[in-house]
């Protein structure tokens, strides 16, 4: 049995709800087939009665072993460092988090909020939210840069807004089946197995990206073209597996015609949603994308783009996702 405690701070519960969409394994399979003992979760039918606080204290004090501590949502520090914007079981949630994190074998930050801050930290960060071990890309966060769980690991960040259910279930199964040692993390705490490829990897619009052909507009305009050039898509510079492991077993945002928002990266939402930045590619001198595909620079990009446009075959300017 692997014990798991799941708490929610400055959260929308979207990661929990996303998890309920999982199959192979489903959330029920995690419990019945993989022996994950969910000692407490805010949305699932765990009966705890008046013992809830007693249980939480026994975990927080190390009297009862805790294998996995999953935290969803930001850690809320306000007002004035008291944490009273988010009370939980008689105390500010942040006080529970720091105690439980130090008792757990593995600490998992689920979703962009817990990992890096997400939407709640957008200017003016009204409740003084912070991620578990990061504030956006700055290491430190609530638990500090040097924090290590009892197993010696930093916080495992599974970002995304929300996370894909498989990113969670497969990591939990890895832990439950003795493969925790195979979970390699990148330089911002993400499991490399899901967050090394790009959102663009597997996108059905890649041929249009290759020939620098843009989708002209939304709706019928997305029957052809790439969303990167005009519509603000961050697929070429966002690390995720959204187009390798499809959403709801069916599709992905970019396949459907919605630009990637970069929600697995610490800067999400980019540009703090300032006027003019939503669903619009940011440009330098009106034509060149400000943010380029990872690993390129503007001189190289422009040379390559000019060549690609010249070489573009005629079909790349026609509708391809047709009725």
């Amino acid at each position, binding site marked *: 049995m692997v014990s798991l405690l799941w708490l929610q701070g400055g959260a929308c519960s979207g990661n929990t709800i996303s998890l309920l969409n999982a199959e192979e394994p489903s959330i029920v399979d995690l419990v019945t087939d993989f022996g994950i003992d969910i000692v407490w979760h805010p949305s699932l039918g765990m009966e705890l009665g008046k013992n809830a606080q007693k249980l939480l204290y026994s975990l927080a004090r190390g009297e009862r072993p805790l294998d996995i501590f999953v935290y969803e949502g930001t850690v809320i520090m306000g007002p004035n460092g008291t944490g009273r914007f988010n009370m939980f079981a008689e105390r500010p949630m942040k006080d529970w988090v720091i105690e439980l994190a130090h008792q757990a074998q593995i600490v998992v930050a689920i979703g962009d909020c817990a990992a890096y801050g997400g939407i709640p930290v957008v200017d003016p960060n009204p409740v003084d939210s912070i991620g578990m071990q990061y504030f956006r890309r700055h290491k430190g966060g609530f638990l500090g840069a040097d924090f290590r769980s009892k197993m010696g690991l930093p916080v495992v960040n599974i970002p995304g807004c929300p996370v894909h259910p498989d990113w969670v279930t497969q990591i939990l199964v890895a832990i439950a089946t003795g493969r925790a040692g195979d979970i390699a993390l990148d330089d911002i705490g993400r499991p490399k197995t899901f967050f090394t490829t790009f959102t663009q990897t597997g996108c059905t619009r890649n041929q249009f990206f290759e020939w620098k052909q843009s989708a002209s507009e939304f709706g019928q305009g997305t029957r052809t073209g790439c969303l990167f050039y005009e519509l603000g898509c961050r697929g070429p510079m966002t690390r995720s597996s959204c187009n390798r492991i499809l959403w709801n077993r069916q599709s992905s945002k970019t396949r459907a015609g919605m630009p990637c928002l970069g929600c697995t990266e610490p800067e999400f939402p980019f540009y703090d949603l300032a006027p003019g930045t*939503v669903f619009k590619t940011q440009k330098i001198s009106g034509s060149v994308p400000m943010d380029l595909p990872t690993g390129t620079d503007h001189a190289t990009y422009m040379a390559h783009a000019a060549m690609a446009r010249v070489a573009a075959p005629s079909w790349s300017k026609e509708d391809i996702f047709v009725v």
Partner: protein
Amino acid sequence: MATLDLLVSPLGRVEGDLDLAVKIDDGVVSDAWTTASMFRGFEIILRGKDPQAGLIVTPRICGICGGSHLYKAVYALDTAWKTEVPVNATLVRNIAQACETIQSIPRWFYALFAIDLTNKNYAKSPNYAEAVRRFAPFVGACYEPAIVISSKPVEIYAIFGGQWPHSSFMIPGGVMSAPSLSDVTRSIAILDWWREHWLEKMWLGGSVDRWLENKTWDDVQTWMNENKGHYESDCGFFLRYAQEIGLDKFGQGVGRFLAPGTFFQPELYTHPTIEGRNAALISRAGVYDGKTWHEFDQARIKEDVTHSFYEGKKFLHPFEGVTEPIDPEEGRKHGKYTWSKSPRYDVPGIGYVPLEVGPLARQIIAGNPNHAAHQNYDPLIYNCYQQMGPSVMLRAFARMHEAARYYKMVRQWLTEIKLHDRFYIKPVERAEGQGFGATEAARGFLADWIVLKDGKIANYQVITPTAWNVSPRDGQENRGPMESAFMGVNVADAEDPVELGHVARSFDSCLVCTVHAYDGKSGAELAEFQLNGNGSC
């Protein structure tokens, strides 16, 4: 404030996002207070941002009804920017919104509501063993299938919107996607798989069409006894067992209802306006004051913060609304006890009062016989309401009834999409304006008010279903709907007051909540237990 002070202290003991304090005198609830215990400040974040920021931010208010947030947020912008929305886009928006709700129906029933039906307090009921066999969490015969099947309708959402939850594929002027033939045929196949495997096989034990012939509570009894399939279905069993354990006898609430309506008749709402909204709705808007129906008018809504952790005692319409949080410690000194504001509606002839929102409210509005040809008229739940009044059972029944109704609508809309027509008309991005968008989240009224100035958001106010239902007392000391629903409830076992759990869950507040029960005389705590929710609407 004397009575409030008495209970503020025990209210300090909070688990989860919603805390209910209930005073019990001689086994009967004599007072109740609800506390939402977490604040994130989304309305503050939206100030000064890109006009379309709400399409990204507001779905993240609530993971379970994020699609509903997107739906109303886009209509707030459509009305503010005066867009034109093509017929196809309205159909796709309707389909997506309805699929989110039909996802929520079995998930809510089996994962959140029905597990209380297996409470040991009912062990002496004749059908208790059968309830446990079906509904016990994780191991019940219906539990896992229903959880897994509930993820099917949102596969359709993903086909049109890329993913669920948290897509932002609806934009002013339409939708981002343009489905292909196989997107539509796959969606039909998934929807019909859901109908066959859950709606007909598990829930109704018979056909959808036969169910929808039921117009009265008596019709339902006839349906029930018509054959073994109906009688033994989860629906049949629930209705029989709910009456056996008395869920039809308590949890009445304020007895006044509000529905903002949802789903537009596409050709009637190609140019969305606030004024033209009611007439274009398929699932109607309205107010029911306990005796008669009234037209819905968003201008009659105000939010009170007398007992909420915000500055002062302001009572403002959302276009003028403000969100000025204060330290809860300071707020408690002034009789404030929750993060929820108190939305109130100016009912003609009555004045500003709390109203219940949600499936029961929707279905009572749907029972109004005055309707246009394109509008949903469905007398069943209104007839049940007249026969037996509101209760925990009727609230749950209203919600489950919508599964059949919504299935039929989505199936129809899928046939109406014209694949070669437009899905988007690029709008003029106006720098100034104000807009209102609303919908029915699974659990009720959800609306945005947006004010644009200088090409950015000057004010953004959201009212959620939970704000209506778990709202605290207002400046007139009127209790919120859920607080009212607890009043007079008989608690059989004060050590395990499952009746209070039923009431709370029947509203599906989508906050995790904890009930604390106190002895009215001694103030001693009798029991506390965890309820479960799934989101933060």
